[in-house]
C-alpha cells in the first residue's frame, strides 16, 4: 500500500531494546490500590461506594457522570478504606478524589455482565453500551473515553478504523508486547469496533521498527479480508492521530475538525484488546500493560499492572532504581508528564513509567536562540516554534496564539532538536494554560456582566411594580403618608434582625 509523507518529525534514540524482547510480567497484587475518580478527559466519575464497603474485582465503584466521562471498577476484591484526596499522577502534584481499596488477597471476580456471544450480530448501541460500562478509555495516553469515539458512526459516514500501533515514543514497548502476545484479541477487538462504527476497513498501522509485531499481526489478520496491517515509516510523531491518518490516507485533517470528518476513526491497539475483553468476557478495564524502563531502572520490563497500583510498587517490582533518576516520567519521554513523586497511582492512560538519568535526558542550560530554524523544519504541525516562543517569552501571548500555539500538540520535536536547549514545549504549555485561563475568565466575565444586568432589570421591575401598586392604592387611601410608603420592606426586616 502506498503511504504518504508527513511533515517534519525527528528520529530520536528509541532505546526500545531495553524492554521489547521481554514477555509481559504481571505485578503481584499490591495491598493497597488508589483509584482516582478521574483518569480520563472529561468529568470525574461519581462514587458509588463508601468507606468500609466490600467490593469484588470488576465491580463498578464509580459511575460516569455526564457525556464525556468514564466509570471506574475495582481492580481486585477487597475493602474500601476511604474516598480521599490523593496526589494525582500529574506534574502539578495536586491531589484529587481517589478511592482507596485494600486488597483482600482473594482477587475474586464480581458477577460480570453477560458476554456478547455474537457481537457481529449485535447492534452498535449494545456494543457501545458495553464499552461505556466497562470504563474503557484510549490507552495510548490521551485517555479519551472510547465509547464516545465509537458513537461517531451514528453522526458521520466512516470508512476506516485505524488501529494505532505506531508507538513512536522512545522506550515504550507496551503496545509492541501486547501486539506480539495478544494478536488475536486485538484483531477481534478491532473487528468489533469496526462493526460498531460501521467502517468496512480496518487498518492496523505499526512502525517498521517492530518487525515481529508486524509479522504476528499480519498473520492474525490474514483470516479477515477487511483487516490490513501496514508498516509505517519510523518517524516521530507518527503515532499522532492526525499524522497517522495523513500517512495512511494522504488526507489532512482540517484544524478544529476531527479525523472522523475524513471518515477515519483512530483507536489504540491496547484499546482494541480492552474492547475484546469487555465484549467477549464482560470484563471491565481493571489492568493495563505498563512499560517500566529508563536508564535508572534496574530491570526494565513490561508489567501487567492493576489500575491504581502505586508507582513505588511498580518500580520496586522492576528491581528499584539502579541510580538516582534525574526525572521520573509518566508516559513516553517526548510527551509524558514528569511525576512529582512516586506515590501517585498508575491510571488507565499510563503507558509507561520511565526513570531517566541525566545522560538520557541530555538537558543543558538554555542559551540564546540562534534562529537556526531546526524547530520549524521538524515541526509536524507546520508551526514556527522559534517565533511563538519568542513572543511568549515577551508575554505577547495573543501573537503566539495568532501564530498557532493552540494548534501545537506538544509533541516535543522542536525542544528535542533545539541546539540552544530552549524549553519550547514548556513555553507552549504555559501559553496554552494562560490562554485557556483567559478564555475561562472571559466566559466568566461575560456571565457576570449579564448577571448584573439581569439583576438591575429585576430590581427596576420590582420598583416599578411597587410604584404601580402604590399608585393604585393611593386613590383608595389618599390620607396615607406619601414619603414613607415606598420604603422597601427589607429595611424593617433588617431592623428586626439587628
Amino acid at each position, binding site marked *: 500500500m502506498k503511504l504518504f509523507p508527513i511533515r517534519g518529525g525527528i528520529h530520536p534514540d528509541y532505546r526500545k531494546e531495553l524492554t521489547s524482547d521481554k514477555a509481559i510480567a504481571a505485578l503481584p497484587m499490591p495491598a493497597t490500590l488508589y483509584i482516582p475518580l478521574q483518569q480520563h478527559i472529561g468529568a470525574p466519575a461519581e462514587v458509588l461506594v463508601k468507606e468500609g464497603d466490600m467490593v469484588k474485582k470488576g465491580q463498578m465503584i464509580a459511575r460516569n457522570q455526564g457525556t464525556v466521562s468514564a466509570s471506574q471498577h475495582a481492580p481486585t476484591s477487597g475493602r474500601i478504606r476511604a474516598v480521599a484526596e490523593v496526589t494525582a499522577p500529574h506534574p502539578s502534584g495536586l491531589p484529587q478524589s481517589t478511592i482507596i481499596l485494600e486488597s483482600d488477597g482473594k482477587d475474586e471476580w464480581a458477577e460480570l455482565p453477560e458476554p456478547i456471544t455474537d457481537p457481529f450480530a449485535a447492534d452498535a448501541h449494545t456494543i457501545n453500551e458495553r464499552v461505556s460500562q466497562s470504563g474503557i478509555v484510549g490507552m495510548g495516553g490521551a485517555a479519551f473515553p472510547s465509547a464516545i469515539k465509537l458513537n461517531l458512526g451514528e453522526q458521520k459516514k466512516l470508512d476506516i478504523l485505524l488501529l494505532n500501533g505506531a508507538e513512536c515514543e522512545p522506550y515504550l514497548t507496551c503496545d509492541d508486547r501486547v501486539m506480539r502476545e495478544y494478536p488475536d484479541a486485538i484483531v477481534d477487538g478491532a473487528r468489533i469496533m469496526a462493526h460498531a462504527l460501521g467502517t468496512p476497513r480496518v487498518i492496523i498501522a505499526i512502525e517498521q521498527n517492530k518487525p515481529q509485531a508486524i509479522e504476528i499481526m499480519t498473520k492474525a489478520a490474514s483470516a479477515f479480508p477487511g483487516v490490513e496491517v501496514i508498516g509505517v515509516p519510523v518517524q516521530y510523531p507518527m503515532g499522532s492521530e492526525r499524522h497517522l491518518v495523513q500517512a495512511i490516507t494522504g488526507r489532512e485533517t482540517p484544524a478544529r475538525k476531527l479525523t472522523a470528518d475524513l471518515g477515519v476513526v483512530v483507536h489504540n491497539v491496547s484499546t482494541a484488546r480492552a474492547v475484546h475483553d469487555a465484549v467477549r468476557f464482560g470484563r471491565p478495564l481493571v489492568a493495563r500493560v505498563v512499560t517500566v524502563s529508563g536508564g535508572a531502572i534496574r530491570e526494565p520490563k513490561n508489567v501487567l499492572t492493576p489500575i491504581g497500583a502505586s508507582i513505588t510498587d511498580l518500580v520496586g517490582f522492576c528491581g528499584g532504581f539502579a541510580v538516582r533518576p534525574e526525572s521520573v516520567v509518566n508516559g513516553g519521554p517526548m510527551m509524558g508528564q514528569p511525576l512529582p513523586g512516586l506515590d501517585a497511582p498508575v491510571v488507565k492512560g499510563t503507558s509507561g513509567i520511565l526513570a531517566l538519568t541525566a545522560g538520557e535526558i541530555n538537558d543543558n542550560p538554555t542559551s*540564546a536562540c540562534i534562529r537556526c530554524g531546526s524547530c520549524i523544519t521538524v515541526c509536524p504541525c507546520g508551526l514556527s516554534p522559534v517565533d511563538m516562543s*519568542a*513572543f511568549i*517569552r*515577551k508575554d505577547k501571548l495573543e501573537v503566539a496564539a495568532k501564530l498557532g500555539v493552540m494548534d501545537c500538540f506538544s509533541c516535543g520535536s522542536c525542544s528535542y532538536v533545539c541546539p540552544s536547549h530552549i524549553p519550547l514545549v514548556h513555553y507552549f504549555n504555559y501559553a496554552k494554560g494562560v490562554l485557556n485561563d483567559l478564555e475561562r475568565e472571559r466566559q466568566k466575565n461575560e456571565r457576570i456582566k449579564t448577571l448584573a444586568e439581569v439583576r438591575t432589570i429585576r430590581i427596576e421591575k420590582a420598583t416599578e411594580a411597587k410604584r404601580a401598586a402604590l399608585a393604585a392604592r393611593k386613590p383608595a387611601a389618599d390620607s396615607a403618608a406619601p414619603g414613607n410608603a415606598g420604603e422597601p420592606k427589607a429595611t424593617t426586616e433588617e431592623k428586626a434582625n439587628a
Partner: protein
Amino acid sequence: MEAYVLLFVSAALVNNVILARFLGLCSFMGVTTRIDTAVGMGLATTFVITVSSMADWAVGAYLLEPYNLWYLRTVTFIMVIAAAVQFTELTVKKVSPPLFQMLGIYLPLITTNCAVLGVAILLVEHKMNFIEATLFGFASSVGYSLVMVMMAGLRERLALADVPRLFAGPPNGFIVASLLALAFMGFSGMTA
C-alpha cells in the same frame, strides 16, 4: 530612458531620503514599530510626495519663477503641501469613508514630514523639469517607503530581543538605522 532609470535609482536607493538625506526621520523613528503601520504611512507619503512635488513644481514654474518670488518658496511650498494633504484627506474621504476611517490618522503627520518639503526644495535646487520632478518625487518616496518597511520589520524583530536597558528604545533604533545606512552605502556610486 537610461537617464530616468538612473534618476530613479539615485533618488530611491543611492541618495535615499531617509538614510542619505536625513529627511523624514521623525516618522522613520516614530511610525516604524509595526510593518502594516509603516506600509500605510509609506503609501500615504508616497502619494502625497508625488502629488505635491508636481504641484510644487507647477507653483515654482508658473508663479515663483515668472515673478521672481523664489524667496517665498518655503512659505508657498509648505502651504501647497498642507493643501495637498488636505486634498488627499478629502478625496480619500469622498472615495471611500471606510478607507478614510482606517488611514485618516496618517495624513496629518505628513504635513510636518520634512521629507515632503525636502523633496520639493531639492527638485528646485536641481532645476528639474516637470517629468524629472514627478519621477524624482515618486522615486524618493518609494525609497522612503522601502526604508520605512525595512525598519519596521527590523523593529518588530527587535521588540523580541533582549536589548540592554541602556540601549532599549530610541538608541537601539538609531543603531539599527545606522546599520541600515551602512548597508545602503553599498549603493553609492551606482549613478556615477
